[in-house]
């Protein structure tokens, strides 16, 4: 490609405004939050008196934050697992020359177009312990006294009430997982599967030995994308359950918001937000490095 030096300078000038904006609003603000997280700021007026790690120590000692971390871990695990399994199964089934494929795809994916607030409002009504799904379960003869998101029971570290959020979030994102798996399945050459079939491989063997290994990078993307959504989950919780009985459905995002904007404890709120950032960065940075390495190798 033809480039003159003058044009190259202009190119840099063109992206400069965006670079400046991102530097300030992303990196500058993160540093500012970091500074806030080691400050004594409580109340409306900023107070940047340095207090060391006091806010963090406070935080990790609080029962609420410990519960939040467990909830995040369990929610992330079950949410990702559900989306991957349901998404893969749907993609696999839909990829077999289905009549009306477009209709099925549209149906499975439509929740992606909705806001977590809409999803939360609707699922709160559906899982209402008095009127909701319980009535259907009762009519079908199943146990029907589930408390859903009002249930304070904790089994091991797992709050039963989280099930409601996992269901709602998976409903929203299973279709997304299906769509990326479907794109992956379509990119596997037909001959590969056909030749495995000729060699006498059963369907299950083909899936395990041929299809899944070829979709490994897609599974990785799905885990990363779904994982970072679940680590910062906030909207769905606010709309559906709030912090729940005995923090059964509380998450760092909710805790941060309440601490900061309801409690006016800015120092502690900032500390929570930094912990959230670290959790997300731990999965996103290796992923971005991986993707960019691959791109430069291509």
């Amino acid at each position, binding site marked *: 490609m033809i480039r003159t030096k003058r044009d190259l300078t202009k*190119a840099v000038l063109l992206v400069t405004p*965006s670079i400046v904006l991102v530097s300030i609003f992303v990196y500058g603000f993160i540093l500012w939050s970091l500074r806030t997280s080691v400050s004594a700021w409580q109340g409306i007026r*900023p107070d940047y008196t340095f207090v060391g790690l006091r806010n963090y120590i406070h935080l990790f000692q609080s029962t609420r934050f410990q519960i939040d971390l467990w909830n995040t871990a369990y929610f992330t695990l079950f949410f990702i697992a559900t989306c991957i399994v349901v998404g893969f199964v749907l993609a696999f089934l839909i990829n077999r020359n289905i009549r009306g494929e477009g209709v099925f795809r549209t149906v499975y994916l439509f929740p992606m177009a909705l806001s977590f607030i*809409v999803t939360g409002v609707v699922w709160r009504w559906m899982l209402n312990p008095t009127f909701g799904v319980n009535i259907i379960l009762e009519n079908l003869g199943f146990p029907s006294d589930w408390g859903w998101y009002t249930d304070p029971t904790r089994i091991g570290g797992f709050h039963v009430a989280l099930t409601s959020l996992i269901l709602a979030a998976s409903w929203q994102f299973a279709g997304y997982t299906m769509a990326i798996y479907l794109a992956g399945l379509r990119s596997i050459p037909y001959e590969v599967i056909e030749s495995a079939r000729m060699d006498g491989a059963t369907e299950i063997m083909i899936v395990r030995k041929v299809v899944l290994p070829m979709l490994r990078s897609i599974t990785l993307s799905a885990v990363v994308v779904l994982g970072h959504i679940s680590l910062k989950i906030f*909207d769905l919780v606010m709309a559906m359950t709030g912090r729940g009985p005995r923090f059964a459905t509380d998450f760092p995002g909710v805790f*941060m918001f309440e601490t900061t904007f309801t409690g006016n404890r800015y120092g502690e709120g900032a500390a929570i937000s930094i912990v959230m950032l670290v959790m997300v960065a731990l999965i996103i940075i290796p992923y971005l490095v991986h993707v960019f390495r691959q791109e430069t190798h291509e």
Partner: protein
Amino acid sequence: MSSATQTWKTERAVASLKRTVLYITLVAFAALFLTPLYVVISTGLKTFQEARLAAMWSLPPSVSLQAFSAAFTRLAPHLENSFKLVIPATFGSALLGSINGYVFSKWRFRGANTIFALMLFGMFIPYQSILIPLVVFLRTIGLYGTLWGLILTHIVYGIPITTLMFRNFYAKIPDELLDAGHIDGLDLLGVYRRIIVPLSAPGLVVVVIWQFTSIWNDFLFAVTITQRPGVQPITVALQNLAGSQVIEWNVQMAGALLAAMPTLVLYIILGKYFIRGMLAGSVKG
């Protein structure tokens, strides 16, 4: 001979049975996915008394638009706020993304890839980690609590994803085409205006749908930045509606449907582009 026919027949029977099971599974999943939609519509069409009864799963005895009109009266100003917010924010971030995408795909100056990667990180961060400084900053420049403050926020935090989408899209435009422009004496801006922009339509549609949907559906920025009911967008208003004293489920469901309508309509009409945007969101184009 006859046993061969027999095997063939059994195989066909098995194949058609498999097919039937396949369709039944797909339909069952579809029903499951559509259940919330059924509940929303049927509850929204009930009256207050009907919606409070244990009959939440049954169809409304008669169609009543009472809930929809109540929801619309309460939510209309907020729908308007959302449109006033989403349209400028979407086009603002798309414009910046298009310029950046052009430079990052066609003008790889030194360090461009590193800068691009650093930029991309901005689309994954939990926004909680910039929320306190953002509020202080918006207060300082006098935009806290205003729609303009929210628009600015969405434009800035939309830069990474729109840049990514346009970069991947422009990468497919052959360099020879741009070279031809340069030979004709166009500089980099000339090439952008005369060659890139006219070819941008399909990429722009993907970006616009994506940004429209994300900004319309945003709650965290909206609830933090807009405290006064007068400027609150639809997601915040819907959440407040749900938190009111007497829970009118029928009005809530009608409200949820109203809030979902614009993005749902976009999805149904332009689903293909919506999916493309979604796939681009997982970094690889």
